[in-house]
């Protein structure tokens, strides 16, 4: 243990701790901008500087390790002058645009400007005047707001191993830009949105499409139908001032109805369907010597990654569309027919934890219903904003049920939202299909949790099936390199682009720390635990759709509506 004093308070912390960590131990929070709880120290913003006795220079709290007997002062006049001046400097080229900014009231720079009472900035405001990058359907970059903390670069390079972002130029002309200064769409970016979570300010954000939604609701000729992804419910509460998992599903449904959705359905339904299609695809591949290991295909950020970096492995991808797209093609065919609604009138909105889904919905091949299958994708955050605008108090809203057909789901679908969830859901079904025995304990706890790469083996009637799970694309890359070199021992691999899985998706309530992701995962398993049915193949509506419409997994109709194909992206620079 290292003993030191911070502002006169004695602190004892383990060796290797930083001043910032030690200060937190005694309830002193240093201001930070470039520091990120799950990233390497950068020490470039300098707002965390402190006085350390014996040093002429102020020391950055986030990067300076404590030493025995160290005397730290965190709020002397010199320290405060330094922090305020640095903030003034940063703000002096920052568009004074808080009222219009997507991060208004959720911005680390705004918070510090407020805390440090930046009033009359002595430096003349000089906004840099970059153009907005709206090249992707998912993500917008506003370089004028960038404070060059480089957290997005860390997220993109270290967490995701995509390396789409870097610094170009020097000094005051330096800027964080996509590869070779290209528009984001032309870089290898996979649209996962992890950079959004990392950004302390409004320099990267989702392509907000609330106007499109409001226009659809206002259009009397449109029937607005929504699907809610598995990872939404437990996180949406965070957007309206509740704890993770606290908002009951039924109240959420009422909230959506109030916002003008005509029919509220559930992506969980097609998550269950995915399990039947994908589970059977796996069994086929195992039986008939198809390409193995098979990769899950429900994470569009991952699909983009595979198409960009591993085009040679596209045959390994399950041909199943993501649950969102399965839902999209079914809602304008099966559901429309069943409801007696003209599919041309259906405006299909999906509520997703994901920015890459906005892109996925816009893929030209995603129109198997004869229309664009999913018309609009709104992220959890966008729905959160709609909810806040609505003035609804979710503590008082009465509950209501999903609409019928494609609204029922099982615990297996619920866990799709967490890393390992698709795998566990698949195992619950595949086990029973192959062994024709009831699975006594449905909990495959070995595939759960925040570990980057997890593996498990299941005995299916004497055949050992080896599975692996990765979340976060740098972990995926490890498994892919193994596959590429022919050394992968697995039969089935689940990949989710985002750390923690969809609960940490790029469209979820802003999550700076992985701790929050772990909390959401916990909430997801609580929900699964409480479901009366926990195996996809036991979903009664799924049984009905096969009886009435699809007839069999991997059948003709399935192929037409539920499966897809992939293309190498051939990006110019990787």
């Amino acid at each position: 243990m290292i003993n030191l004093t911070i502002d006169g308070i004695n602190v004892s912390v383990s060796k290797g701790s930083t001043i910032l960590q030690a200060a937190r131990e005694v309830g002193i929070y240093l201001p930070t901008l470039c520091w990120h709880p799950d990233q390497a120290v950068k020490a470039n913003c300098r707002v965390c500087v402190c006085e350390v006795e014996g040093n002429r220079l102020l020391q950055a709290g986030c990067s300076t390790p404590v030493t025995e007997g160290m005397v730290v002062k965190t709020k002397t006049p010199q320290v405060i002058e330094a922090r305020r001046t640095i903030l003034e400097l940063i703000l002096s080229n920052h568009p004074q645009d808080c009222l219009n900014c997507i991060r208004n009231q959720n911005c680390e720079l705004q918070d510090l400007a407020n805390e440090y009472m930046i009033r009359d900035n002595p430096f003349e405001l000089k906004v840099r005047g970059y153009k907005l990058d709206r090249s992707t359907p998912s993500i917008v970059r506003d370089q004028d707001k960038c404070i060059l903390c480089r957290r997005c670069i860390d997220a993109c390079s270290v967490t995701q191993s995509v390396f789409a972002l870097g610094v170009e130029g020097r000094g005051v002309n330096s800027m964080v830009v996509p590869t070779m200064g290209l528009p984001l769409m032309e870089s290898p970016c996979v649209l996962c949105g992890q950079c959004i979570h990392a950004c302390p300010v409004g320099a990267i954000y989702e392509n907000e499409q609330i106007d499109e939604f409001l226009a659809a609701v206002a259009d009397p000729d449109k029937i607005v139908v929504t699907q809610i992804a598995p990872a939404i419910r437990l996180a949406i509460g965070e957007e309206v001032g509740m704890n993770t998992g606290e908002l009951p599903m039924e109240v959420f449904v009422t909230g959506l109805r109030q916002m003008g959705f005509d029919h509220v359905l559930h992506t969980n339904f097609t998550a269950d369907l995915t399990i039947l299609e994908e589970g059977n695809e796996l069994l086929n591949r195992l039986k008939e010597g198809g390409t193995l290991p098979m990769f899950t295909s429900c994470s569009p950020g991952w699909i983009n990654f595979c198409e960009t970096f591993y085009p040679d492995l596209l045959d390994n991808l399950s041909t199943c569309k993501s649950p969102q797209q399965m839902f999209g093609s079914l809602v304008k065919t099966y559901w429309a027919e069943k409801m007696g609604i003209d599919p041309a009138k259906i405006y299909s909105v999906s509520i997703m934890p994901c920015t890459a889904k906005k892109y996925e919905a816009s893929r030209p091949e995603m129109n198997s219903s004869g229309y664009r299958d999913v018309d609009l994708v709104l992220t959890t955050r966008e729905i959160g904003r709609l909810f806040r605008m609505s003035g609804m108090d979710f503590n008082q809203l009465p509950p209501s049920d999903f609409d019928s057909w494609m609204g029922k789901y099982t615990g297996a679908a619920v866990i799709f939202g967490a890393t390992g969830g698709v795998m566990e859901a698949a195992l619950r079904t595949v086990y029973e299909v192959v062994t024709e025995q009831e699975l006594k304990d449905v909990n495959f706890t070995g595939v759960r949790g925040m570990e980057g790469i997890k593996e498990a083996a299941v005995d299916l009637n004497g055949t050992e099936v080896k599975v692996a799970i990765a979340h976060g694309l740098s972990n995926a890359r490890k498994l892919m390199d193994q596959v590429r070199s022919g050394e992968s021992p697995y039969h089935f691999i689940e990949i989710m682009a985002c750390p923690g899985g969809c609960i940490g998706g790029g469209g979820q309530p802003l999550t700076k720390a992985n701790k929050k992701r772990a909390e959401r995962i916990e909430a997801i398993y609580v929900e699964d635990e409480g479901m009366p049915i926990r195996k996809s193949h036991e979903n009664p509506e799924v049984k009905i759709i096969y009886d009435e419409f699809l007839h069999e997994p991997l059948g003709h109709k399935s192929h037409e509506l539920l499966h897809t194909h992939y293309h190498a992206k051939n990006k110019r620079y990787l």
Partner: protein
Amino acid sequence: MAEEMRIVLRNYGKIDPLKIEDYIAQGGYKALEKARSMSQSDLIAEVKKSNLRGRGGAGFNCGQKWSFAYGAESDIKYVVCNADEGEPGTYKDRLIMENDPQALLEGMAICAYAIGAKQGYIYCRGEYPQVIKILNQAIEQAVTKGVLADFAIEVRSGAGAYVCGEETALIESIEGSRGEPRFKPPYPPSQGLWGKPTIVNNVETFANLPAIVENGADWYASIGVPSYPGTKIFTLTGDVNNCTFFEVPTNTTIRELIYKFGGGIPAGKKFKAVQIGGTSGAFIPESQLDTPVAFDNMSTIGATLGSGAVFVVDETRDIVDVAARIAGFFEHESCGKCAPCREGTARIAEIMENINDGFGEMSDLALLKKLGRVMSVSCLCGLGQAAPAPVITTIEHFMADYQAKIL
């Protein structure tokens, strides 16, 4: 009065730099042999005792720095020579490398033995292609002669940015990354090149070592000012008669440098100020000219030794204009990694340009001083920390010139 004294440049003009035999005939590589006969810790203790301090600007005790790398547990360690010499008006390292490259190699080899390194790099300024050629030839000869034993040296060409002379930016650059400083600690002697213990020393620092090892620490420690003993090479530029270089003991005063060695100001003009140590050096007025050119003595007057560039400004020069240009230099050379330097250098340049163009206000000076106070203690690396010095010291010593522009 001090006389010129050549330790580092002892072979200047006496040998053919491209003949290792010449160097050896002058007693070259005896020191390395002697060093290798000592234990590593004795050698380091000797260097420490000589009180040799880094000639690259920061003035850190050389032997002490080595002892950190020596004490660091690692199978691989590196010796890096900082030959980036990006400071305008400075060419002392080039002088050494062009005229006595073997002295540098011998100094590096002594260090390598002391800390237990097998690989060395010379990071040489990219604008010195002829020097790189000389170094490569010198290395080849030393290898052929076998004097370096199992110590290998590779020359790397600099990336052209001023900041790459900062030791951690230099390390990043050798590693193939954008030349940007790292935060410290950890310092290079514990985690440097590729995360391994690394000694980065300046060319002049290394070139001192053969003489120190050969003649002993006491000899060296007795030369010049005890707190910063030995000699220092100065390169004179600006309004001074002898625009050339001198190696002088460190008890030489600034006045002697300018008037005795430099021959005074041309055309009978009066002295106005001198900037020592390169672009980021303080401007020193007449009243402080009797300060010896040793590290701590310079610190007491708020100045530095830096690279040893001496830039003399006579009474006819517009010092505000000079300071404004320097501010522009730093705006251009800031790497942009840390906020106070990235934004601060640009603001200083902007405000100085304003003042220089006659649009300044007195409140600008207060703002410049505030920037100076903050940047000098908050920036990530020495560039940003030192960048405000020329502006701040000219405001301090030549307020009338500023007032004349403002009013």
